């Protein structure tokens, strides 16, 4: 595909060549430069058939096979989908998802709104549509726009389920919008970088949580309208989130001109011009018909997904006295470290954004320091052995703090872990039932493995450093009953499916990103799980984990929330530069007292609850309009 194409103006009717008035035609005859190059230098290659296939005595038979292989090319129509077969070991779409994919490809192409109810797998549908088009060579450049909270999830899904490597714009390997073929970009980044994004024409654009584009005056909606893309997929469970005119905003993106102007739409369909929340009863059927032309919507009741239930056990335990003191001292150390950082700027909505210091230089890399503090905090919450290792590593690179760090590290050696004791109790209660244990730190994973083994059980670590074969072997052993406890890190557990034998997930370390929690549980709570899933959450009393668990996650019913609803909630509260994890860390390290920390976390919880309520309202409004 690298060689140039000589597009020649076709000897075609005049009306086909008139810009805009006719369908543009391109007729190309690609220069066979590769072939000519091979012919230009036959001598050095012509010494051995291994180097030059042209000397292979089997050449005529290869040639015959090549000619026969033409019959194996992909069928021209979408009557038979290729992607489900190709992705046989990665994704098993539900029948309703396949119906949506077929509908979009056959009837709604090249643009559609995927408006399934929450939790029915719109990402899978969009991924299948993309993969189908990619396999047929119809799509190569793709831009995925999603709220910041969902970027990693998109990347993971596309990699795990669709075998597609998309790059995030904040990754080091990202080489620019004009160069990367497959990009996942946050909505704020999309607006900021629009000039670079709009330079090229994209084969496909996927917008997740597309109701965020409903406001016609918003910059992101205007930018989305200006984006040049052949295929456009908008994903939202609530295409009519606030106003009936939300529909106009979205439909005008996938089928420009179909509804005329906004005012025309309002005149035609809206009964109350002031609030735009009521559709004219006599035009409701017509509006629904128009929506049906450009969107696919599956309702939960129609999907009939047999999901197992969940039971959540939250276990808090008082830290040992040595542990308590250690946590207090290390937290104070981290607090001091954190407070030395420049404060993050706050935008008009009061949300934090990139700090001014970071923007204007020199130059504390706030992000890097935050990541380091976060890692230390995770180690501290995880296990004394984990924080010990982390402190010693830091001591090596920070000579000025060496003494204090080593002193703290030394104290870790003698501190017993209350959570570890709790884990042993839980495993004993489970009586050999296989369990998937999640920890944030490798040191903790290794320590727990040894500790469990020392008690006569079988345990293994499932971490990112394992090769594919090693992982497969571990899963096979676990499923065969040879291992009773699999201790995994979040990075290591990507692509892990254990629903066959396991129904117990232990969040030994709590993750501050709720999406990660959901992904952890999803390793066993997925299609094919026949038993109710038990989720154990561990936290040391009166620590930040305890607050997060009780004031944040339980407040929004995270562990029993409808699958998929969390994404929408998070996408609403996480629009600034700081993600939820950083905000929790900020709450922990900025506050001076446990009460202040609690209040901060509680406020964050209220924000999530508000977003959850708004989502419910949007869902019921959508139901009213589109049901």
């Amino acid at each position: 595909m690298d060689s140039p194409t000589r597009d020649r103006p076709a000897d075609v009717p005049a009306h086909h060549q008139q810009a805009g008035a006719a369908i543009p035609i391109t007729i190309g005859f690609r220069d066979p430069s590769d072939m000519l190059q091979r012919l230009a230098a036959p001598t050095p290659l012509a010494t051995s058939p291994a180097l030059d296939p042209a000397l292979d005595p089997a050449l005529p038979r290869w040639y015959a096979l090549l000619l026969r292989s033409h019959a194996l090319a992909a069928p021209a129509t979408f009557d038979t989908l290729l992607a489900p077969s190709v992705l046989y070991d990665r994704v098993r779409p539900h029948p309703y998802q396949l119906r949506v994919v077929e509908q979009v490809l056959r009837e709604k192409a090249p643009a559609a709104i995927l408006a399934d109810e929450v939790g029915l797998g719109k990402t899978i549908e969009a991924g299948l549509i993309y993969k189908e088009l990619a396999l047929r060579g119809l799509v190569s450049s793709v831009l995925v726009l999603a709220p910041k909270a969902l970027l990693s999830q998109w990347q993971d899904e596309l990699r795990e389920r669709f075998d597609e490597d998309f790059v995030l714009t904040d990754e080091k390997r990202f080489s620019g919008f004009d160069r990367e073929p497959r990009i996942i970009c946050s909505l704020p980044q999309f607006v900021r970088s629009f000039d670079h994004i709009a330079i090229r024409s994209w084969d496909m654009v996927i917008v997740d949580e597309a109701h965020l584009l409903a406001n016609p005056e918003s910059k992101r909606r205007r930018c989305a309208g200006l984006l040049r893309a052949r295929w456009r997929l908008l994903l939202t469970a609530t295409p009519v989130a606030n106003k009936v005119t939300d529909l106009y905003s979205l439909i005008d993106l996938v089928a420009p001109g179909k509804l005329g102007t906004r005012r025309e739409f309002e005149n035609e369909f809206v009964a109350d011009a002031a609030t735009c929340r009521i559709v004219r009863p006599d035009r409701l059927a017509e509006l629904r018909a128009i929506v049906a032309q450009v969107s696919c919507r599956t309702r939960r009741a129609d999907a009939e997904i047999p999901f197992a239930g969940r039971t959540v056990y939250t276990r808090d335990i008082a830290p040992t006295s040595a542990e308590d003191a250690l946590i207090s001292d290390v937290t104070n150390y981290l607090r001091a470290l954190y407070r030395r950082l420049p404060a993050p700027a706050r935008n008009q909505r009061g949300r934090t954004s990139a700090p001014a210091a970071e923007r204007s230089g020199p130059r504390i890399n706030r992000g890097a320091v935050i990541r380091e503090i976060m890692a230390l905090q995770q180690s501290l919450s995880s296990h004394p052995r984990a924080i010990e290792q982390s402190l010693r590593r830091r001591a090596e690179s920070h000579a000025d703090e060496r003494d204090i760090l080593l002193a703290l590290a030394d104290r870790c050696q003698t501190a017993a872990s209350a959570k570890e004791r709790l884990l042993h109790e839980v495993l004993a209660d489970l009586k050999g039932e296989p369990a998937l244990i999640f920890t944030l730190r490798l040191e903790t994973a290794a320590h727990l493995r040894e500790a469990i083994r020392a008690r006569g059980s079988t345990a293994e670590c499932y971490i990112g450093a394992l090769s594919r074969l090693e992982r497969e072997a571990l899963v096979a052993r676990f499923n065969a009953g040879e291992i009773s406890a699999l201790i995994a890190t979040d990075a290591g557990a990507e692509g892990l499916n254990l629903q066959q034998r396991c129904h117990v997930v232990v969040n030994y370390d709590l993750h501050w990103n709720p999406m990660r929690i959901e992904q952890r549980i999803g390793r066993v709570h997925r299609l094919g799980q026949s038993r109710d899933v038990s989720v154990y959450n561990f936290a040391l009393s009166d620590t930040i984990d305890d607050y997060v668990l009780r004031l944040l996650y339980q407040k929004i019913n995270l562990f029993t929330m409808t699958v998929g609803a969390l994404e929408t909630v998070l996408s609403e509260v996480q629009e600034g530069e700081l993600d939820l994890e950083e905000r929790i860390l900020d709450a922990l390290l900025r506050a001076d007292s446990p009460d202040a920390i609690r209040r901060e976390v509680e406020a964050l919880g209220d924000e999530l609850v508000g977003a959850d309520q708004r989502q419910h309202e949007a869902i019921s409004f959508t139901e009213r309009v589109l049901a």
Partner: protein
Amino acid sequence: MKWLFKWRKKDAREPDTPRSAAPSSSAAKRSSERSGGISAASPLLQFAGEALILRGARVRVEDADLLFAVLPDGATLRYTDFAPRARESQDIQLLAPGSAALADLLAETARHGALGAFELPASADPIERARTGCGDIPTACGRCVAKNAEDAIPPALCEVCPLRAGRLGVLGLGRIRDVREVRRWQAQSVELTFRVTYRDRHGRYDEWLRFGWDPMTGQPLPPIALASLAHARVLPLPPTARDLLAPALAEAERALQPRQEAAAVFFAQRDNAEYQRQRDDLLTTAERLRRESDQAPDEIERSLAMELTRLGDVFAVGVDAELESAVFITTPMAEVTVRGGSGSLTLHLDLGRDVVAPLACAHCGQFTQAAVLCRQGHLLCPRCAPARTTSAAATVSCPVCEGIPATPGSSASPRSRRGKARTEPDALTVTHLDAMTDETWRRFVGWYLEQQQCAIDRVEERESAPIWRLRAAGEPLIALAPRPGIDRALGDVEVRAAAASARGSALWLITSSPAAPEAHATAKQFGVRIIDRAEMARFLATASQAHTQQRIEAERDTLARIAAATALHTTLLDTFSALEHMLATAENADRVGSRSALVAAATRIEADCQTAERAFLAWDTILAEWIAAFGEREARDGSLAVLLTPSAFDTLGARIAHLREATLAAFASIAATPGDGEAGYAVWRKAVLEAFTARCESLRWRTQIITPAQWRDFSAAHDTQAAAQSESSATSARYAAGRAAKAYDDFAPRIRTGKAIARHG
């Protein structure tokens, strides 16, 4: 484990023995061809097995859907084409269109088969091949070499024509008596395979086109049969390979271009109506935005330009050709002399390809499948020496014998001339249909049938051509789409054969070739409908203008509706003016002289009032229908939408005319009553006239609310003052009616007494 298979190892001497030769064009469809290398059930496993064998692997079929291979380095591979089987184990790779495993194998095959040279062995006996590859054109027919006027229908082949089986036909050769081989030599040629990718709004499909080229004659050659490749011997690339490739590529590009264009124009034509509809949506919306003035004008224009570009991107049609392989072929050639009953000729045979080279015209040098042999032994193409045949003999005037020099361009066929004359076609034409590949033609036929409102049930693959089984107006139908070839007409033979295959079902024969008169006659006899070149040309002309035509018709329809509405508007206004005039002139100076006359006048007015009341009720209904005949809100383009058809307006007009007469009669009757009288008669009569006048005025104003003549601008077509006046007049009418009722209440007791006297008297 059952070992139900044989180990197969790559053996250079063991040939692949394909059972059938590939066509020159192979589109993306599954094939049941099997090479015999291994005996896997599916084409995918078959292909994988053969590729692995060529790599030196040992391959066995473990199950109907599972292939096992041991590579030369000892590594093992398992392939399946069944996804559930692939899920069973991580080491089984799935072969499916688009899968990585298949893509790897295809890439490897493409790498190995992309470039090379080989020698084809002689696969035919030249003597036998010459006898079977060439035939005498019967003198009794000779239509395939007859002269045709440029605009005449080209000849159809007769039933026994040697050209029908792809042979050469020579008029004047006579029955072949002797064939002798003169010499043999080796010739070099090039075969190129192009992957042509077609993309449009509906997706993409690929087609592979093979192009053989003889550098000596510059003539295209038929593609090599796959069977003959099994015995081919590899050669080093010729030193002149690059020099051979360049002109071959140029020739191929020339040959491909019309096919690409034909497909591209067809795909654009296919989507044009929808494209224009969506484009109209955008233009209308932009126009509306301009009127609404919510956005800056340049922003609207920029946005419109962008949307139009985006629409173009969505509907864009692309046809790309890419060279996939180039092979340099050395083939054994033979020259033979064929002696027939009436003459002799020299033939060149490609023994590797097993084909007879076309004949070269002794006058113009062009190659031809059908030729005429003059008495002096000059072989001439029909264009240089058209034959005049009778049932007994053929006469040929030989330009070589007569010393007439060849004129450049005189050799071009009528169809070719048509092709060259095609400089500014305005849409898809029959010439495009001629140039289409079989796959594109097949798609075109499917589209054509859809345009004819046919529902295609299925398409059956037959060896010769596909058969469409469809329904037209609920009736089952079969469609065939034969392509007799350039310069050939559809003949009666083809019609008879098609009718026989249809077995009594209704049959359509769709072709881009002209149909010979005898074909039409036969079709009539068998009840076959022929859609030939002429009919197809008419269809294409209509189809290309479909959108424009639709717009014109829509515009025409709108204008007709507006004209009808305007006429009715005038009628209504005239009517109400007439009614008002009648009421205005109803002042009558006569006085009722007697009581009985008073009673009679009052009775008459009462009756007329009842008639007029009924009429006013009907007028209200009519005016409600009149108002409802127009869109409540402005149309997309800001105009007044007229909802009623002209005929509905006509019906309304008839009702208006009838009602007008009835109302006028009632008013005339009232007007004829004396204007003055005692006992409150005059007051009552006057009040009645005033009430009716106000009501007529109200109706007139209601009529004037909408002026259909101003239909292009919704606001201008609506007179808000008239609406207000109508309301005001209606109020006046209600008051007047009240006054009339009061006057009647005063007058009525006397009338009742009078009536009673009259009744009893």
